């Protein structure tokens, strides 16, 4: 679905990510792990077209899009939910969602989609008339993700959806991401929270200083001592694997959607 090869991108002509290659298959959650400043957000911005690609190619559903405008990429079905939520603070929740559906697509209408979002996040329905800037951080994140879903994307790039959220909300957000995959969406999940990400992801890439240093199935990575040391904050990989694999199940149980 998404096929990136040899991609370099950065600011003011200076590359931050170098010669980067990765793929996301249909219906997959791919986690992008790395510390602060590793280049995760730069990669996300390069994929959505906010930053130009300095070298390399990005193919989305077979078509080369590395020169396409952000708008064209949204139309193609590649949607980026940026770090820090970036809701339109002065507009109402409903207006934010409407803007999410700015790119018109055949199929259900904007209002029908909005209903779906409201069903998923009842709190957004309650607050649909209030200004987005007055929402709490967690509600804003819900809004940002819903806004991204309004255009009916095929691939969703989520950049740090758990950043700055209370721990209970973090679990809620991850459970929802796992559920989105169930609806056939492909997801590229850029996160610092490696444990949670690996728990729901199919595969993962580890980014360091703008280069991929490790990649593989999430289940393998979660057992790797390297990951454990650097990103899970554990001295040794002595945690039982069940606990991690059970995480999704527990999350689902805790936050069952109708």
């Amino acid at each position, binding site marked *: 679905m998404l096929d990136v090869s040899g991609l370099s991108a950065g*600011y*003011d002509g200076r590359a931050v990510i170098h010669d980067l290659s990765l793929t996301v298959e249909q219906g997959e959650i791919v986690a992008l792990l790395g510390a602060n400043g590793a280049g995760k*957000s730069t990669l996300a*911005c390069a994929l*959505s*077209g*906010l*930053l130009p690609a300095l070298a390399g190619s990005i193919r989305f559903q077979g078509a080369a899009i590395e020169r396409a*405008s*952000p*708008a064209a990429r*949204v*139309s193609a079905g590649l*949607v*980026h*939910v*940026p770090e820090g939520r*970036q*809701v*339109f*603070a*002065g*507009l109402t929740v409903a*207006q934010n969602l*409407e*803007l*999410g559906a*700015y*790119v018109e697509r055949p199929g259900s209408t904007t209002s029908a989609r909005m209903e779906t979002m409201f069903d998923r996040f009842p709190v957004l329905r309650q607050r649909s008339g209030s*200004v987005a*800037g007055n929402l709490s951080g967690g509600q804003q994140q819900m809004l940002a993700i819903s*806004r*991204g879903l309004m*255009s009916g994307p095929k691939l969703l790039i989520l950049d740090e959806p758990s950043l700055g959220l209370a721990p209970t909300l973090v679990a809620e957000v991850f459970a929802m991401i796992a559920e989105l995959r169930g609806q056939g969406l492909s997801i590229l999940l850029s996160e610092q929270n490696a444990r949670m990400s690996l728990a729901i992801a199919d595969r993962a890439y580890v980014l360091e200083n703008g280069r991929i240093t490790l990649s593989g199935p999430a289940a393998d990575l979660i057992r790797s001592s390297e990951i454990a040391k650097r990103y899970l904050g554990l001295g040794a990989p002595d945690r039982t694997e069940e606990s991690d694999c059970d995480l999704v199940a527990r999350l689902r149980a805790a936050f069952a959607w109708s």
Partner: protein
Amino acid sequence: MLQLVQYVLGGLLQGAIFGLLAVGFSLIYRVTSAINLAQGAFCILGALLTGSIQDALGLHVMLAGVLGVAATALIALLVGAAIFVPGLSRLPTSAMFILTAGLLTFLEGASLVAWGSQSYTLDAFSGERPLRLGGLLVPTQGLWLLGIALAINTGVALVLSRTRMGRAFQACAENPMAASLMGIGVGRMQLLSFVAAAAIGAVAGVAIGPVTSFQFDTGRMYTTFGFIAAVIGGMGSPLGAIAGGLCLGVATQLAAAYVSSLFSNALALVLLLAVLLWRPSGLFASGPARRQDVREEKRVNRPPVRLGAQPGGILAALAAVLLLGVLPWWMRSGGLMSSVIITAILFVSVIGLDVLMGFTGQVSLGQAGFMAIGGYTASVLALQYDVPPLLGTLCGLVLSVACAVVLALGTVRLRGIYLAIATLAFSLLVDSLTVGLEGVTGGPSGLVGIPSFSIAGFVFDTPLRNFYLAAGVAAVVLVLLTGGMRGAFGRALQAIRADPLAAAALGVRVGRYRMAAFCISAALGSISGSLYAFYFHFLSPEMVGTQISLQMLAMLVVGGEGTLFGPLFGVAILTLLPTAFQPLAQFKTMGAGLLLVLFSMYLPSGIFGLLARMVRLLRPRGYAPAPVAANGSAP
């Protein structure tokens, strides 16, 4: 009673003009959250083009108007695509102010080259004969104006509030990055708003053309009054724009009728300040209130260039002293000497502007206003009361600082564009006072016979003496400020420039420091104005008018903001070049505008920054600390 109704009617028509001018600001603001000071220039451009097209093709004025508006839109398309939209993506809001001030100057200069400095009028759309309603006289053009203003403002309001495009416009202003992630072509939207606003401005210009005469530089009046109307009505609200315009129109017309036309300009300024203080989001703002000044913090100001420690500092000082000694002998005669003296005098004023803009990050468009206060106070005191020049200069200084304190108290909690627009209004007020108070200032023809500067009987009456006076004052100011800016005071100012909130959190009294910087800049402007008058023995309004404010802005940006020494390059270039190339004098305004635009876009650190970079390259090894990378609006 009939008289009153007639005045109110006149005010409403005037107000329709203001409302029409204001809606252009609102439209651009709604999409880019920037203020386009060049808006007024497009009004004049539209009117001038219409006049020429009508002359050339012999068309009816309305038909010519359509072509004129189309031609203006085409020009705006080029200007927007080449300058305004690229500027938005790389400059902070305060720098956009400077950029559009440069555009205004450039377009005015270009109009001067193409149409000369005489004034023009257009034919009325439907004859000159006024309608008679009862005892009232209503010019038909006024009805056209009112109708056009209502139609356009309502139309823009509908587009903004009802359409998908209107929503997209709003998204672009709220958060350009998120907007482009929604699939909105942000650059295209920004360009569209710029061109649409310019076209509306041109329509306004053509509609006003028959009512008031206009010339190449009338645009800045339109910019000011349109902006004031937009602020009164609520920035970004087209219906607020027309409401604000009508309020402003009626108020100023009544003031002009019953008090004096001088008072009407003052009233406009007072209205503006009152609204800014009382309801910064405007009288008729709809939707959530939003303070423009808060947005300033969104983008980071570039840190100014520093040369680092100067091992050759003493050598450089020696060279400067030597140069000062030799220079006047080398150019004893001719106009060059005079230019150099003017450069030194203006430098004093521009360095004051640098303290305010380069160090505190505030924008002032009214520096020449303080020059006028200093110049006129000292001259009037010397001419009418025989007050010694030094004492007169001090009086002017005190008066300037007093004005600055009043302005600052009004705007001290306001940042960015509020101070800029208040100072612009202040400058225009001073303009109208210097022209209007004929008994005191001599009116448009100015004051003549001003004595030479003298201290305790020593008269500075030869060019050489004046040179040492001006150069000496400039050198003293430069040395004092350089010392001051290296100390705690300068650090506090720079902290405010970098991040007012963080500075306040560290215990810097932001308001107080801002006021101090503003007072310093006013004082230096005033001193410079006094010296100016004593040197020329003559002072007229246009020598210290608003266009000089804009020129000094160009001098500062070209020289290098926040460097104290850098502005000398800017002042020298913009003063000496027109003297050196006399035939090019008519291109001066255009050139200044173009330089301002180019430097603020491509070389924000000015000539000084360029030289500093070269010095760094020439140094054998990295002695100076590496330049701090300017982190712009990194998403």
